[in-house]
């Protein structure tokens, strides 16, 4: 994002420089594709759902054993010192194959990087190696019953007690809290005062602890992914405070560029496109060729932008506006695919079960795509801020 003054006119340009994957990243791509082919051949899983819903702890451990979790983290924390672009190769290939990545996804994408940046040395040494091995899974503890898009209004509160903190409050839409080990929760530890963003802090909560209650919230697809997590005087040791007390807002927003710009924001319905293609491989009609080609064109644009953000993250820049922009555009693209492929109808005479299940799953899950990770409205507000309108 740059602001450029030329001839007195204030010009705003979002920044998406063009990067090329280095040769070692492309070698890695072949390796990941080989791994996926082996897994599929062995019948270890079926491509299904999208990145947020297909959960397999054993798959995550196999990925960890390959060195594909915590890839960009230093070796001393169990990481692999690889670049953001190499990480992108792994994540996009796993998503494109609709692999069951949900267990490790949040921990690898944002909890680990958050701890790496703001966590104590002891927290890094304790948690990062477990995450990188695919043995420790995290949930996001942001939303509450009365705080969704308006995240700064959270009311869960931590009061200082001897040796730690006592948390009271509720978190909702906490995906896989019933299966994951930890959640990083954003709670109020002090008054905001003039700035609503002050007085917030983040804590690592052990979801298996006896004084943490995890209740199911079944979604409209009939699946249990969401939970409500209830804290009623839950004790959290001082050592589980992430970063400085009161710095929670800055920390939580730093997670968002990681959360918003990745390939999961435009590959949610890739299985629909690939399965449609597979149905008509023998005799593709012009309409189908056109539909598939249109998707390919948009994927190229989105992927170019996503690569640019990954590369900027690598150099320490956090392109928040660009990340929001990609997510909004990517989500719209995912939605468009459903409409386009549904309309093809008889152009797909040999409809496979795989295609029909992808169509059903995409259709029923699509409302969640434009909600999770920031609603469409929040994202457009951010882009507008980037444009200088707010």
């Amino acid at each position: 994002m740059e602001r450029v003054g030329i001839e007195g006119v204030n010009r705003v340009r979002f920044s998406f420089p063009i990067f090329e994957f280095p040769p070692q990243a492309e070698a890695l791509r072949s390796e990941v594709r080989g791994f996926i082919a082996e897994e599929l051949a062995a019948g270890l899983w079926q491509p299904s759902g999208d990145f947020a819903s297909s959960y397999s702890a054993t798959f995550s451990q196999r990925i960890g054993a390959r060195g594909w979790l915590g890839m960009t983290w230093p070796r001393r924390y169990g990481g692999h010192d690889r670049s953001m672009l190499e990480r992108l190769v792994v994540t996009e290939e796993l998503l494109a194959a609709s692999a069951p990545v949900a267990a490790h996804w949040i921990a690898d994408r944002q909890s680990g990087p958050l701890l790496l940046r703001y966590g104590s040395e002891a927290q890094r040494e304790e948690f990062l190696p477990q995450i990188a091995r695919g043995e420790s899974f995290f949930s996001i503890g942001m939303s509450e019953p009365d705080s969704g898009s308006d995240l700064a209004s959270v009311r869960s509160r931590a009061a200082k007690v001897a040796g730690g903190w006592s948390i009271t409050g509720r978190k909702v839409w906490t995906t896989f809290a019933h299966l994951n080990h930890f959640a990083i929760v954003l709670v109020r530890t002090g008054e905001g005062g003039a700035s609503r963003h002050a007085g917030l802090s983040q804590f690592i909560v052990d979801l298996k602890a006896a004084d943490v209650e995890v209740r199911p919230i079944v979604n409209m697809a009939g699946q249990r992914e969401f939970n409500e997590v209830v804290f009623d005087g839950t004790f959290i040791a001082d050592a589980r405070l992430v970063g400085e007390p009161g710095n929670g807002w800055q920390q939580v927003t730093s997670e968002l560029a990681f959360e918003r710009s990745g390939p999961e924001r435009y590959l949610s319905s890739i299985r629909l496109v690939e399965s449609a293609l597979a149905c008509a491989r023998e005799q593709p009609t012009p309409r189908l060729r056109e539909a598939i080609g249109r998707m390919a064109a948009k994927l190229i644009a989105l992927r170019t932008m996503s690569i640019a953000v990954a590369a900027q993250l690598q150099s320490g820049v956090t392109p928040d506006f660009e990340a929001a922009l990609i997510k909004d555009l990517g989500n719209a693209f995912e939605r468009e695919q459903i409409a386009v492929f549904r309309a093809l109808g008889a152009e797909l005479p040999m409809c496979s079960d795989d295609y029909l299940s992808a169509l059903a799953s995409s259709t029923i899950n699509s409302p969640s795509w434009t909600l999770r990770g920031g609603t469409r409205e929040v994202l457009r507000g951010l882009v507008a801020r980037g444009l200088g309108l707010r």
Partner: protein
Amino acid sequence: MLAPILVMDTLVHDAATRAFADLARDWLSIDSGRDGLLAAVEQLGFADALPSPDDRDAWPAAAAIIRAQARSATPIDMALLLATGDRAGSISQSRAYDCARSAAAPDSPAALAALSLGRCLQISAAMQAALELSLQYVQDRKQFGQPLAKFQVIQHGLALAAEEVAASGAISDLALACAVRDGVQTARMSALLDAAAVVVGQSVDVVYDICHQVHGAIGFTQEYPLHRHSIDFLRWRDHLQLLRGGELRCAERLGDAAFELGSVWRAVTALMQPRVSRD
């Protein structure tokens, strides 16, 4: 350290803007107008519209100049001249929009690719210029007691337009990077230009709609400069579609590439990476 293979440097951009402002002044001050312009264009190393397909070093500079020109809204339709390389025919000074289907199309595949690329860059730049004009306008114009920019519906509309401008810019830059790297005569280049034509073509609809909508009636007048940009990107899009046989054909060819590899994803990754192994 990771380095981008292509980045539109602000300094290059500014220099290009100035260079074209100077050119425009010279052209207007010389009686032999068009010849003067041609001489100046020749001096800049763009004798034939765009750099020679294999002169990779010249491409980023050419792109910067094409973009700067497309944004500058000078009264000279230099871009048409540059892009068509039409040295014999007359330069159209008309601002009327006519869906022309007789625009010049070069016979060589290399020139066709270069020209398509030039059009994508121009359209992206003209959309960016229209967006910037709109951003300025909504901050200046007040209705219901406050600047239009304060209305959330205006903010979200312009955010959408900005997203389209960004997508078009990114895919055009990717095609440019491909040209810089391997020249314009590659199958990959041709496919990327098809993809760019699809993306850019759709973006124009969104940007044309939203930028005019936020302007209200003033944007629909001759006296206000928005039409310079919108007629530019509309006309250039027509020419781009003419060069490539239309958006549907572009999409079909891309679809063929996906069917050939048996996967959209494989086609996308292969097209975006030179020397990718066909595993």
